[in-house]
């Protein structure tokens, strides 16, 4: 490998990041679906000639590492690199071939310069529907992956520049919204073309040898920074156990156990003791589990480390085969975020034993996904789909943020006015839940309450929630955040408490659905919270007088 100047490395790195960004802009510009345009559930990445990720454009942490893990598996077990030709596009969505869940379709394309492969570019897009048992392909009753939608094993979607339309037709025949899927797939292919052009431009400008030397240096640089950050932690071992309520089909709980061993500049995480894979669709594959682990470590190490394959080299992840964190075919996985968020909080919990000052208390840690299918008097059918969030944990620097998209996901809410303009529902309430933040020297952020009424004659409700039994933990004496719950108030006034995960609960006009999400855990002993801050929380209604009593501080004193 030729020696390369650090100046050239940085200029090439800038260019690679820009290439990933151009691909990202292309997907945004040319895609059809709102999942892509409004929720921004997609990522793009650039890899070196051997398939090691060197740059990415991703704002959703769970996408971190998704593509590099997929590509690695794809090359090792399915299509070796010598069979990648100029103009090929390779596609998969199969969790058991390195993919995430079925709606995430990944595409890759090799880039050639002067006859040699110099890079690979890739995209990942969450498609609005890939078939299976429920619209949107979130089928809570799935017991095996065959019920979750169409599986695309790793295959060549285009060969030497010629698109295999038969494959596209086969996929489109198996999805509910073929126009959007077709449009988003085209956007992914267009983005690969833009990425390839950008990489050719870079190779022409700097030469293939310098490009290769620069990418090696970029990976080594991130590895060096990661090792330095790890070395800054005290040596030691820590164990932590998280409990997930259930898989929506059987009685829980699901156990997540991690042993973290930190020695010098390396970290080893062993998940032995975690529950076997479960019947419901909340299982994680190795690639998914690693995404959560890497997110937690990058956040905890708090360093400005460019995320690429180099970062992961000092981290060893050991997973028990056939467990909920390394599920085997054909376990269903669509609701993977139920467990995935909690893998991150388990790693945070273990890290907190080594460096409590750098770790936040647990957050709500679930993507509160719900869907209300409605049928209007005219017969018109629609599906109102939304994602809610809760509170972040208290941390050494202050209180947790309330009602923020935290941890492994990062989405925006749908404006109430937009929802009401489009779907037959009326909102009655959207607010913070007082006392939902765990008490602590630094309080947990507050969870949310969202209440809406069905205005159409009939509908059916599905939810993929968590935290109904196991609240977000506190740290250093901080108390847990609140539990979540769903309440259904019938038009006749009767009230039902729903389970965390329900599928197709019938609702009628006038029925009111109330969703309460969890606040974050508290950080530090509540008794150490200054009285003035408790008084301010009281004045702002963040805590009620009853909630303030949980701090063990004299209220009259607090009021002064």
């Amino acid at each position, binding site marked *: 490998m030729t020696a390369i*100047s*650090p*100046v050239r*490395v*940085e*200029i090439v790195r*800038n*260019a690679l990041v*820009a290439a990933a960004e*151009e691909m990202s*802009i292309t997907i945004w*510009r040319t895609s059809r679906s*709102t999942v892509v*345009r409004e929720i921004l559930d997609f990522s793009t990445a650039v890899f070196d000639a051997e398939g090691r990720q060197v740059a990415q454009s991703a*704002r*959703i*942490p769970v996408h971190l590492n998704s593509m590099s893990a997929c590509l690695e598996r794809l090359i090792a077990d399915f299509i070796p690199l010598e069979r990648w030709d100029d103009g090929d596009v390779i596609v998969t969505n199969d969790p058991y071939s390195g993919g995430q869940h079925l709606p995430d379709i990944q595409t890759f394309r090799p880039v050639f310069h002067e006859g040699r492969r110099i890079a690979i570019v890739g995209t990942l897009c969450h498609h609005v529907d890939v078939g299976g048992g429920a619209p949107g392909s979130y089928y809570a009753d799935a017991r095996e992956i065959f019920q979750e939608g169409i599986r695309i094993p790793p295959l060549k979607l285009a060969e030497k520049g010629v698109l295999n339309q038969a494959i596209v037709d086969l996929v489109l025949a198996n999805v509910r919204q073929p126009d959007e899927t077709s449009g988003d797939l085209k956007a992914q292919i*267009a983005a690969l073309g833009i990425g390839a052009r950008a990489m050719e431009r870079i190779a022409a400008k700097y030469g293939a040898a310098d490009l290769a030397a620069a990418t090696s*240096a970029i990976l*080594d*640089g*991130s590895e*060096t*920074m990661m090792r*330095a950050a790890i070395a800054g932690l005290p040596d030691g071992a820590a164990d932590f156990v998280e409990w997930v309520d259930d898989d929506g089909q059987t009685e829980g709980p699901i156990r997540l156990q991690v042993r973290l061993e930190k020695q010098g500049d390396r970290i080893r995480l062993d998940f032995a003791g975690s529950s076997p894979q479960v019947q419901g669709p909340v299982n994680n594959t190795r690639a998914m589990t690693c995404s959560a682990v890497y*997110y937690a470590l990058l*956040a*905890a190490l*708090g360093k*400005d*480390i460019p995320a690429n394959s180099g970062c992961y080299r000092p981290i060893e992840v050991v997973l028990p085969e056939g467990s909920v964190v390394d599920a085997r075919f054909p376990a269903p996985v669509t609701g993977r975020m139920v467990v995935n968020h909690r893998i991150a909080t388990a790693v945070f919990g273990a890290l907190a034993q080594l460096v409590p000052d750098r*770790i936040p208390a647990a957050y709500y840690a679930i993507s509160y996904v719900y869907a209300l299918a409605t049928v209007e008097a005219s017969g018109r059918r629609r599906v109102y789909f939304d994602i809610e969030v809760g509170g972040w944990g208290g*941390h050494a*620097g*202050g209180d947790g*943020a*309330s*009602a*923020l*998209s*935290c941890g492994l996901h*990062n*989405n*925006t*809410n749908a*404006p*109430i*006015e*937009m929802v*009401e*303009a489009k779907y037959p529902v*009326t*909102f009655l*309430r*959207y*607010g*913070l839940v007082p006392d939902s933040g765990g008490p602590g020297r630094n309080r947990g952020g507050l969870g949310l309450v969202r209440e809406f009424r069905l205005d159409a004659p009939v509908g059916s409700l599905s939810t993929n929630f968590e935290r109904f039994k196991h609240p977000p933990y506190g740290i250093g004496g901080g108390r847990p955040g609140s539990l979540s719950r769903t309440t259904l108030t019938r038009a006749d006034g009767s009230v039902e408490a729903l389970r965390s995960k329900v599928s197709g609960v019938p609702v009628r006009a006038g029925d009111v659905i109330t969703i309460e999400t969890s606040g974050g855990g508290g950080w530090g002993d509540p008794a150490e919270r200054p009285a003035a801050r408790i008084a301010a929380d009281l004045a*702002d*209604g*963040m805590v009620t007088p009853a909630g303030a009593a949980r701090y063990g501080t004299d209220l009259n004193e607090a009021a002064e």
Partner: protein
Amino acid sequence: MTSPLRIAVDIGGTFTDIEILEAATGRVHQFKTPSTPSDPSIGLIGGIKAAAERFGLDIGAVEHILHGTTIATNAVLERKLPAGAIVTTAGFEDLLQIGRHGRRDVYAIALDPPAPLVPRRHAYGVPERIGPDGQVRVPLDEARVAAVADRLREAGVSAVAVCLLHAYANPAHERRVGEILAAALPGVAISLSSDISPEIREYERLSTTVLNAMLIPVVSGYTRRLSDRIAAEVPGSHIYLVQSNGGVSGLAKAGREPARLLLSGPSGGAAAARRLSAELGEPDLVAVDMGGTSFDVSVVHGGQVSMVTEGDIDGLPVRLPMVEMRTIGAGGGSIAWVDDGGRLRIGPQSAGAQPGPACYGRGGTDLTVTDANLILGRLEASSFMGGAMPLDAAAARAAAERVARRIGLGVDETAAGAISVTNSSLATAIRLSLFEKGLDPEDFALLSFGGAGGVHACEVAEDLGIRRVVFPPHASTLSAWGILWSDIVHDLAATEIGLLAEAGPRLAAAAVRLRGEAERLLAEDGVAEADRRFEWRMDLRYAGQAFDLAVPIDDADFGPAGLEAAAAQFHALHRRRFSYDEPATPVELVALRLAAVGRLAKPAPDASEAAAAAATPKTRRAWARGAFVDTAVWARSALGERAVAGPAVIEETYTSSYVPPGWEARLERSGALVARRIADQ
């Protein structure tokens, strides 16, 4: 006979820049005076009087004063705002606290979004409900509004933002709440969301309304003092304030809707870019403004400044039309450093003005972009700021040496490396801001301004395949010069959701309403009927889509033919921006927009200022493509009409421009210096 005068005043933190146009001749004068931060209107009046005296102009001939102010922006950034409250639909008091959920810093542990401007204790709900169709579902509980008024009085707030659900579709409840509060709370500023931002999406509307309400006491105090001073000292003149949309408006409107001033900083530069684009015959111009800490990119395409309908200030959404801008943290003060992975990085930390670059000799020890330019001979120690601020070259080299040791390069190579890395970031920012609009840099000319940009512009252009770079006259007061050529612009909008094909009658009714309001506002500004222009746009989207596009329409024709033409325009625009269209899918209307323009006269520039040309330049050694070479150094004022081949440095008082080998620069008749690429390297 004195010519009527138009005066532009741009008040910055340190200096107040003044440009005076003699409307009869097109002659322009520049003047700089220190700002008076405690009451900027003092510096403004003092500056105008001093400038008039300097140039022998009659202050009685002043017709228009156009004024750019950061008073609203600074009040928000420094949180120097009066106590405020919000009134919402009952059940939705927390909308401001909840926001839109998304976070910017993906890996942060301290996830602390900016605190809302109104604390939760000052959020009040009133029972009422209006549907998305504008129908009243639950009547307004007026007794509860009165009770809220009592509590607001006890709380002692000075500003109240009223934002009720779906008020964009029917403002009746908000208006009634406004009346009750106004009667009960004399002297308290009250803003209605249906007035300031009558568009769907409750959080952005509320955020904009809150900013507006809390700024009213701040800005109206200033406009009152200003108009008193103007009436006394510059009688007979009209004064206008620069808005975020690139136009100006009268004081009365600015006092009612001060949120429109919030992002007006870039407006002067954008107005200058538009004016230069017309003067130079360059319809496609990408404008870059590089100062001490940041690099701002804006785009003129087809002679029009690229605009957006929403932005934010310090993380708080402002949904009002404004100049579109991509900003990165790269400026003359940006610090070069080596990270733990051995990369040479630039910024985002900046040495700022204090201590500033090492060469300022104020105690800075970090290598900055300005230090690197000094080491490379692109800046000159003795002529910086016209010689008023000699630079310390030894300090710059000492700073570079520390970085050089860590990356194993020589001092000169390290400085050159820092400039290369900087240029690659600047080029990337430009490439992406054009790419996201579907535009190609090779079709553009580059307009470079701001104190720090001139020494980078040509090399950045080279990286992008851009072949022409424009260095405008008055680079250090360009914003004031741009303001001089602004028009009065009022943006009005009506949300009208529904299928476009069926919206004709509703659109016609809305258009009559908007047009009437526009005529009233322009009359308030004293604009003659002949100078009024009306630009209509519709926000359209495919049915079911979440995103809409602003489609310009030629005139307010809402008959079947007009609507069909608008739909055709929409398909074409969609294709350009997103690469596909769907002619078979019904087109949905979201809003009708009207920009009401009051045109101010634009005399041709006076070209009588060609200065005497110096015979020979100075020479110094400057870095070019890997080595120091003899480089001609010209004073811009001495260029005359000759073409200068690179390598050359062209110096002005407040900035320098670098012309690399393979480029040639010449002063154009308009006063702009234009560098052209004449040879490919």
